[in-house]
């Protein structure tokens, strides 16, 4: 156990929470006093498995992870990607049995925080409870956006949307800048997240390269035509609730389509 007030693990958590709300000195001190254990995990290992009843949460300090569900014939649906600063199993604090698995995609370093300590923290500091609650709400917002992509976006638009999202999320935790970000996941990971096949993903990436929208080199994504990628994927960053920068997309692109439903057909009509 390490409870030194300057441990980098908890600085990461404070940074994450402060991206959403201003913490008081007392709240910041309370987070710093959380007990943590640091674990390093190899790539492609389960952190939490479906059906588990964890007694702690994991804060990702380094590397990428994903939530997923396995179906028959080895089919895998990835439900979310997680990057440093995320606590992908925060919901286990209040939902005892995990209904999906959480696995590393790369080598990952996590800080393990006992549920008991988090419960005590949130009971004493309602402001921190609200900050954690907000984090799970943002999680749901990302899932809603993924659902929109799965239901309504073509493969090309869907991949473009994912790249815009990952870039902005990575940038918000200081891991991306100048339209460049790490992309350590495989085409199969992307396919399993988007409900497409690796064949589709490869075709899309070939076309994106051909149109000089992106380059992918040495696990690094470089977005060459940011505005074009935003336009293609109809990317509206509102759902990420991030601090805006001058070259960021306008957060009102979608509102103008409100009320313009394409067509309706009653259920049961032939």
């Amino acid at each position, binding site marked *: 156990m390490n409870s030194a007030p300057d441990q980098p693990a908890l600085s990461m958590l404070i940074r994450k929470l402060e991206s959403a709300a201003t913490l008081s000195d007392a709240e910041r001190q309370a987070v710093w006093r959380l007990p943590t254990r640091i674990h390093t995990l190899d790539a492609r290992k389960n952190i939490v498995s479906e059906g588990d009843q964890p007694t702690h949460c994991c804060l990702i300090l380094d590397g990428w992870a994903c939530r997923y569900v396995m179906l028959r014939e080895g089919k895998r649906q990835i439900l979310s990607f997680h990057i440093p600063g995320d606590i992908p199993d925060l919901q286990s604090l209040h939902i005892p049995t995990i209904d999906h698995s959480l696995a590393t995609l790369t080598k990952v370093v996590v800080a393990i925080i006992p549920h008991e300590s988090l419960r005590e923290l949130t009971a004493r500091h309602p402001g921190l409870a609200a900050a954690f609650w907000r984090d799970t709400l943002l999680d749901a917002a990302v899932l809603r956006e993924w659902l929109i992509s799965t239901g309504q976006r073509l493969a090309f638009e869907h991949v473009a949307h994912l790249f815009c999202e990952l870039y902005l999320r990575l940038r918000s935790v200081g891991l991306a800048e100048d339209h460049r970000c790490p992309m350590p996941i495989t085409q199969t990971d992307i396919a399993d997240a988007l409900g497409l*096949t690796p*064949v589709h993903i490869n075709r899309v990436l070939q076309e994106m390269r051909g149109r000089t929208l992106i380059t992918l080199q040495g696990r690094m994504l470089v977005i060459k035509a940011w505005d074009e990628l935003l336009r293609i994927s109809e990317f509206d960053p509102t759902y990420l609730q991030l601090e805006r920068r001058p070259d960021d997309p306008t957060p009102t692109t979608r509102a103008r389509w409100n009320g313009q439903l394409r067509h309706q057909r009653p259920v049961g009509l032939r």
Partner: protein
Amino acid sequence: MHVGTGSYDINGQLVFADGLLAAVLVQLSDFHEDLAGMWFLEAGFGLVDTAYQPTFADLNAAQAWIAQRLAHRA
């Protein structure tokens, strides 16, 4: 048969069962590296429709899979 997949994968085969179009297979181009030369289920109809389109080592494997789908209702 050339198929407009919007990619370099254009060499295709139509698969018929009892006179009805059951599937469209497309051979993967060199851009797919480890999958190059394999056959992708570009589209399957009816019982051959699937949420996840498989890739086959050769046309025999594709045909066997399609026959199996047609023989057994999911």
